[in-house]
């Protein structure tokens, strides 16, 4: 608690905001350091000199291959997915007026899972390597179907919100219903799938940052940049929404439009990520709450700092996932769920005691 009695109220306020910027700066430095660390460690260890030589284009072919084809796209995928999931979580929690809202609340991930399962069973695109590792032989088709599946979920929810004027609370419940429906559909397909298809379906749901290559990373980053720019543009609207529907309206905010567009943009952003990567849980739920505790709930700072926090958490998680049972690589989605649940319980205890 801080008491202010002197006349320099606005100066103290500006100083408080500068502290938030400083925290953002620190997170950015940490992010750069961890990115370097993540580039160097793994099954094949690289020194900083080797990384430097590779990045300026003067390296051995093996280091070149590892950095440009494997580790860099993976790190970029971690950064983009971390930013996307975390920021859309923050926006969803605001637009749906629910602290438990996350990118998956309105059935996006289950829709994607259903779409992917449908592609696998329709086109029989799953297989096994001689080592027993499951792979998906036509990932683009599965990605497109997963994206369409998540779009169906989003469309149904947004149409209910728009046409039937659903309240945010009702949208969350409709999301639960949609998730349940998609799960039932997926289970039905799994029941009739053969062993390989079943394995491919399950394998697809594990969020894995090793899947995308440069073109996919490029597409994900464009969607991410446009979405984040939109969210930053709307930051004052989100601040007003947090004060309640009527207050926001009386401050001149078109609450219906702000909620609907916020949900639409956040949903598309998450859909792209889920379709390329599979399901990565808890990042979107936890990061915004961590940041609220750290720097408060002002969306002017919450959006950029959630982005940095999401990127950092997912990058660290993925780096751990790569080395924890090396040479095997654990899908990061499993690790985030394992780490996320206890952290979330801790936050709940801290916030609601």
């Amino acid at each position, binding site marked *: 608690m801080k008491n*202010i009695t002197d006349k320099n*109220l606005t100066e103290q*306020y500006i100083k408080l905001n500068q502290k938030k910027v400083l925290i953002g700066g620190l997170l950015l430095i940490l992010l750069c350091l961890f990115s370097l660390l993540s580039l160097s460690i793994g099954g094949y260890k690289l020194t900083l000199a080797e990384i430097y030589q590779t990045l300026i284009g003067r390296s051995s072919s093996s280091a070149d291959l590892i950095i440009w084809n494997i580790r860099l796209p993976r790190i970029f995928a971690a950064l983009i997915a971390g930013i996307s999931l975390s920021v859309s979580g923050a926006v969803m929690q605001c637009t749906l007026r629910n602290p438990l809202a996350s990118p998956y609340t309105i059935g996006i991930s289950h829709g994607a899972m259903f779409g992917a399962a449908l592609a696998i069973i329709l086109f029989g695109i799953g297989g096994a390597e001689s080592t027993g590792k499951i792979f998906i032989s036509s990932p683009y088709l599965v990605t497109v179907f997963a994206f369409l599946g998540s779009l169906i979920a989003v469309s149904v929810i947004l149409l209910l919100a728009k046409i039937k004027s659903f309240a945010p609370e009702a949208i969350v419940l409709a999301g639960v219903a949609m998730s349940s429906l998609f799960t039932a559909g997926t289970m039905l397909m799994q029941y009739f799938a053969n062993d390989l298809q079943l394995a491919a379906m399950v394998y697809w749901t594990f969020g894995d940052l090793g899947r995308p290559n440069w073109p996919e990373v490029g597409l994900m980053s464009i969607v991410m940049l446009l979405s984040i720019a939109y969210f930053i543009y709307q930051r004052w609207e989100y601040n007003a929404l*947090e004060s309640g529907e*009527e*207050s926001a309206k*009386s*401050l*001149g905010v078109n609450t219906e439009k702000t909620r609907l567009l916020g949900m639409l943009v956040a949903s598309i952003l998450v859909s792209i990520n889920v379709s390329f990567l599979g399901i990565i849980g808890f990042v979107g739920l936890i990061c915004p709450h961590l940041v609220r505790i750290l720097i*408060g709930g002002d969306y002017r700072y919450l959006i950029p700092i959630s982005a940095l926090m999401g990127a950092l958490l997912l990058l660290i998680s993925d780096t751990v996932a790569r080395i924890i049972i090396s040479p095997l690589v654990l899908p990061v989605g499993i690790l985030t769920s394992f780490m996320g649940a206890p952290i979330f319980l801790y936050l709940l205890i801290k916030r609601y005691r």
Partner: protein
Amino acid sequence: MILNVDGIEFSYPSKNVLKNIKFSVNRGEVVSILGINGAGKSTLLKCINRILKPQKGTVFIDEFDLKKLNSKKIAQKMAYVPQNIAGNNFMTVFDTVLLGRKPYIEWDATEKDLEITGNILKLMQLEKYALRNVFELSGGELQKVIIARALVQEPRVLLLDEPANNLDLKNQLEVMKLIGNISKTQNISAIMVIHDLNLALRFSDKFIMLKDEKIFSEGDSEIINSQNIKEVFNVKAYVDKYNDIPIVVLA
């Protein structure tokens, strides 16, 4: 005259709420809207600042027809303190009050916005709370913060929905005194929905009693009499005076 409510009619799909509501408010005047639960008092406030869109009628502020203004422009002329006050728990009091500048902000808060916010915080004696988070405040403090946010909008008219609700006696008096002072010193008109007739009598210049979707009676404290109280609230009461202030005593 600053505000003119001109023939407002509003109904929900299954219920008529307001019929041909007409009244006007002068600069710096405090008006209390009275009536039983469900009489449409809160709906009337929301129709005045167009949170709800009335099916008929309109409101003029300084001859501007609010129907023709966008919501940002309306927010520059009229501020609203809702019945269920809420703030973003993880935002500071300064940030919460600064939000009142939202109708003026183009890209980000300017120095002027910060200065106005600082001044209002001082005026309301809230500066010692300024950098605390909203969740650390008591109900009375939060009510003041939300009123401060409304003042930062630099409105001509302040609408308050049950501003003394959920407050203890001391805070009720403090908040009501504050509203009275602001209206006189800042020349802002205030329209409030209120249940406590004695608080209304002590702090208002004008009264509007709603009954059966219409204005039953309108005028100064003379209209708060036994007969009207019986008609509107269906309770027996008589009106006495204490230190020249009329008080309602329930029979």
